[in-house]
């Protein structure tokens, strides 16, 4: 099995409901290794839930998810990471937040600090390694969350509106880190409702509308000529983008 990737991820007829409300209906798609995938859609379209299903934080009510033909096991879970809209950091130093994640990932103790520092350097946070994580600025906290993901060397990185709570400058810094992930060969799956960001980072777009996948297209074509009326209306409504 060595060297074999966990992608593609295939969803077949996935449905999710909670509290009597259907949130996702009949989602079938394949996520391939390579190009960055952007999930677009209005608030409440089901982007976050879809990512949580893919990452295994939620279980579908119907349908199945297959990673390279297999149901996710702990080995598959270990090769993916997720960064949330609001970074969840522990009350300890920035460095200790990373070594904690590395410990959970089974990295031997003597290697943790070196790997954690390397990841902090990657996102430009080595100078705050020993500061309490929750005392960092919002942008720094999110970069720390990205460093934590980076330290795990995931094959797939899920990002749920990672810049939604940040100012434009901090958001650009986050985007630069995401681009570095992408360049290093990590598969990016990101939700956003910032169209400018979607254009800058996305290679392909999945457009969700009221719990259904209504369009899937290369990013360039999606923004130039959306095929579905829902996506076209969304793009008109969201213009001008930043």
């Amino acid at each position, binding site marked *: 099995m060595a060297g074999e990737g966990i992608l593609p991820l295939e969803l077949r007829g996935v449905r999710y409901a909670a509290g009597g409300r259907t949130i996702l209906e009949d989602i079938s798609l394949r996520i391939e290794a390579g190009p960055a995938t952007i999930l677009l859609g209005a608030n409440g379209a089901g982007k976050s839930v879809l990512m*949580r299903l893919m990452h295994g*934080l939620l279980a579908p009510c119907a349908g199945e998810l297959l990673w390279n033909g297999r149901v996710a096991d702990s080995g598959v879970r270990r090769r993916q990471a997720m960064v949330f809209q609001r970074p969840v950091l522990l009350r300890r130093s920035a460095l200790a937040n990373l070594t904690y994640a590395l410990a*959970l990932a089974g990295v031997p103790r003597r290697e943790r600090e070196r790997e954690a520092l390397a990841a902090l350097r990657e996102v430009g946070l080595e100078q705050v390694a020993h500061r309490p994580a929750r005392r960092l600025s919002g942008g720094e906290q999110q970069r720390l969350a990205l460093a934590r993901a980076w330290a795990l060397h995931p094959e797939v990185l899920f990002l749920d509106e990672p810049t939604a709570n940040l100012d434009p400058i901090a958001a650009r810094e986050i985007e630069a880190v995401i681009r570095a992930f992408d360049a290093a060969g990590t598969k990016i799956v990101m939700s956003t409702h910032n169209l400018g960001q979607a254009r800058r980072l996305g290679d392909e777009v999945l457009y969700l509308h009221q719990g259904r996948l209504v369009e899937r297209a290369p990013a360039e074509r999606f923004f130039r000529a959306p095929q579905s009326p829902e996506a076209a209306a969304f793009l008109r409504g969201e213009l001008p983008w930043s």
Partner: protein
Amino acid sequence: MTSTLEDAFRESLALVAGADPALARIVALSLAVSLSAVAAASAFGLPLGALLAVARFPGRRGVIVLLDAFMGLPPVVVGLLVYLLLSRAGPLGELGLLFTPGAMVVAQTLLVLPILAALTRQIVEDAWVEYEEQLRSLGATPLRAALTVAWDARFSLVTAVLAGLGRALSEVGAVLIVGGNIEGVTRVMTTAIALETAKGDLALALALGFVLVALVTLLNAAAHLLRRAAERRWG
């Protein structure tokens, strides 16, 4: 009457200022009993509360409601129950604990345990809402996740323990019933205040009252400062 009060007041201040041996012994026993009880209650209450916060099982809601209700258990009722357990005819009578400090520790432990467990449950559950997905994403087992969350909430948990200590130090019903307020053996601050007031020795009662209020105030201030300092240090 006014002069009696004035005398009592002046005398009580002298007792406190001079660290009167009888007063000191009573205060020391109070602290020993209540600290032991809170230590014992913490050993069981903190894990119990944390477990209740993260575990999901049928009837969980009911257990939580019951626990929250038990936070307000009347000390005299707890005292009565422990008295029945420890009395010579009771199931644990052979231990010979009744009217010893040991019995008082048992009673206060039972009194404080629900308070600590209920507060811990609330604190850890609030943190759990925030951390759960991230910790699961990182691959933490439920036990590891619960420990991580409890450790992250450690400063709030300390304030819960201090609240429990305040409750133990200031209750009178439970220790009076199972301890018996025997001078030099089971007399603590609250039982002494009750007895000395009844006997008319207002000076000692007042002096103990001052010490008790000062201790409880100090505990609350400590809890407050600790939280603030932790907030500033760790965010």
